[in-house]
Structure formats: C-alpha cells, structure tokens
C-alpha cells in the first residue's frame, strides 16, 4: 500500500470532457457487467452470510481484540511457525489465546472456570472446559473464521471474529 500515493502526482490533469467522461462511464459499466459474470459473489458464501444472522445476539458481551501479534508485534524473519498471540478484553475479563499449527491454548483472567465453544461459523462450536485457573487447550488448529464463546459465571462473552 505504500505505493498508494506515488501515482497521484499528475492527478490534477485536465478534466475529462463530457464526451470522454461519458465514454469512461460506459467502460466502467461494462467492467461492472464483466465482473458480475466472471467474478460474482459465490452463492454458497452469500448463503453463509445470510445464516450468520444467528450470530446477532445482544445478550452476550463482545470481548474486543486488544492485541494481535500479526499486527501489533514486529515480525521475526523466518519465524513462520511462531504462535499467533491474541488478547481480548470484555470489561474486567481478559482472554489470552495462543494459536499454533498444533492447536490453541489460552486462559481466562481473572482466573475462573468457564465453558467455551470454538466457533467457526453460526453453527454450534466444539465445546471445551477450562480448569479452575481458567486455562484451556484445544487439540485442533482452527482455520478460517474464528471466535470463542465463553459461558462464565457472569454471563456469555463472545470474542471478536477474526480470520486465522
């Protein structure tokens, strides 16, 4: 994206004449039609988005993503197997998650037991339970859309969705 500005130098070139602007609009419209034919939204995906309405739940709290090592940590060259570290906050509750190719582990803080689901879409996720210290592990590595739903003593918390 750093090259996003270098082309703008001659952006204040002459305005298109009405005739030219009309031709460009036609071309743009033609492109739009070509896109609808050659690269439309896959219908199966659209259907998943329709079903995602089930994720609309005003009773649960959202644990917002506060740290993601992909964005917030300096990359280590060659360290492709480094775990991805995520931290979510919902009020006083913090959820730390570490994702590796082998699976995930994490902890709910302050330490408390919770029932957890590993979500990959609107359908019910794989169930997990924490130990008394709020720690949990999951033996499969999530791929694709990912969120955790936690049932704690104080209610339901769902983490922000992200792609892993």
């Amino acid at each position: 994206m750093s090259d996003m500005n270098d082309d703008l130098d001659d952006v204040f070139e002459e305005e298109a004449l009405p005739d030219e602007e009309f031709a460009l609009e036609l071309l743009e419209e033609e492109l739009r039609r070509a896109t609808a034919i050659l690269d439309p939204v896959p219908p199966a995906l659209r259907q998943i988005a329709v079903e995602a309405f089930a994720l609309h739940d005003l009773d649960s709290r959202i644990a917002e993503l506060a740290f993601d090592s992909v964005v917030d940590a300096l990359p280590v060259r060659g360290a492709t197997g480094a775990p991805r570290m995520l931290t979510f906050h919902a009020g006083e509750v913090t959820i730390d998650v570490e994702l590796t190719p082998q699976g995930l582990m994490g902890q709910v803080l302050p330490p408390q037991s919770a029932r957890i689901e590993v979500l990959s879409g609107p359908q019910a996720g794989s169930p997990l339970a924490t130990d008394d210290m709020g720690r949990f592990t999951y033996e499969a590595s999530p791929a694709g859309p990912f969120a955790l739903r936690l049932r704690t003593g104080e209610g339901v918390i769902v983490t922000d969705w992200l792609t892993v």
Partner: protein
Amino acid sequence: MTAGVVPSTAYDDLPYTRGGAVDRADVGALVQSAVDGDAAAWKALVEGLSPLVWSVVRAHRLSDADAHEVYQTVWFRFAQHLGRIREPDKAKSWLASTARHECLKVLKSLRRLTVTDDPQLLDRISEDRTPEQSFIDSEEAAAQSERVRHLWQEFEELGERCRQLLRILMASPKPGYQEVSAALGIAVGSIGPLRQRCLRRLRARLEARGAV
C-alpha cells in the same frame, strides 16, 4: 439478486448517488430492522452489500481460500456488532473498512504470505467448485464473449493501484466514494481523478489491441 423478500430489497433499484443520503438512509433502516430481529432485513443487507464486501476482498488479491474466509469473517463480525454500530447509516463504510483491515491482516501474516505466494496461480488450481458454481461456470462459458474476455484480461494487467481501485468500483451497485475510501484507505478527493486516470489507461490498452 432475489426480489421482493421485503419492500426494502428495492435497494438495488435505487439510482447511484455516490453514497448519498437516499441509499444510506435505506441501509440505516435495514440495519435497524435487523437489530430488532428482522431476518428479512438482514437478508436484504446481505444481498445488497455482498458485492461490495466481495469486491474489497478481491481487490486485495488474496488466494481463493483466504478470500472466502475473509468474506465470512466480515459478515460474522457485522452480525455480531449489529446492535452496537454507532452509525447504522454508515454500515457500508463499516463493511468496506472491516474487509480491508481483515485482508491486510491476512496478507501480513507470515504463514499466509508463503501460502499465497502466487494468488493468481492458486486461484486457478485451488478452486473448489460447488455445484452452483459449476452451473454458473457453464452459463459463464456461454456468456463470455471475446469482448468480455479481452476487457477482463486488460483489466487484470493494469497496475496494482488501478486494478485495486477499479475492482472496488465494479461492485454492484456502484459504491460511493465514502465506501471506496474506507475500502482502500485513501482520501475521498483522490478517488475521482484516480478513477478517471485508470479508466483512461484501460481504454488505451483496449484501443492498442484493437478491441474498441
């Protein structure tokens, strides 16, 4: 696009207003209905705004698998945040900007960089055809005139910035500049001139191959 699920699906018939008040208010109203539990309003939002989300994802040249995942993540997030979005009438910009950030993150992840080394190539190979997709493909085959193929080829060969901008403008209905700005992280004021420039380039390429 399905029609007539709810009156508000007339969204697609609205004239293009560069993100103007009409369709923004309409999106705002649909969001509000969806917050109140109206599944048809949600469906209308998905139908109306999917092409925008898909265009933003495609503009970032992810592999097919990553593109599918990001598209889903964006909608899951939207459903989750539905009642908490402060300005429902700006849901289009919210979606465009969320899609952009999620794309950039995926591109940034080292693991994925190695996987999506050559997204173009991967796209051709890793395509997992659903029956619906195959059906569309056969329709496509018939519809693919020379002209459309040439146009697409020349478009694909434009510079990265032009290709990206045009891919987003090609969403249907045409997105407003506010959404394009959110999708690309560039100033609204620079979009018009850049668009003109990119379309001129594309036209020059088509002329050069005698396809105009």
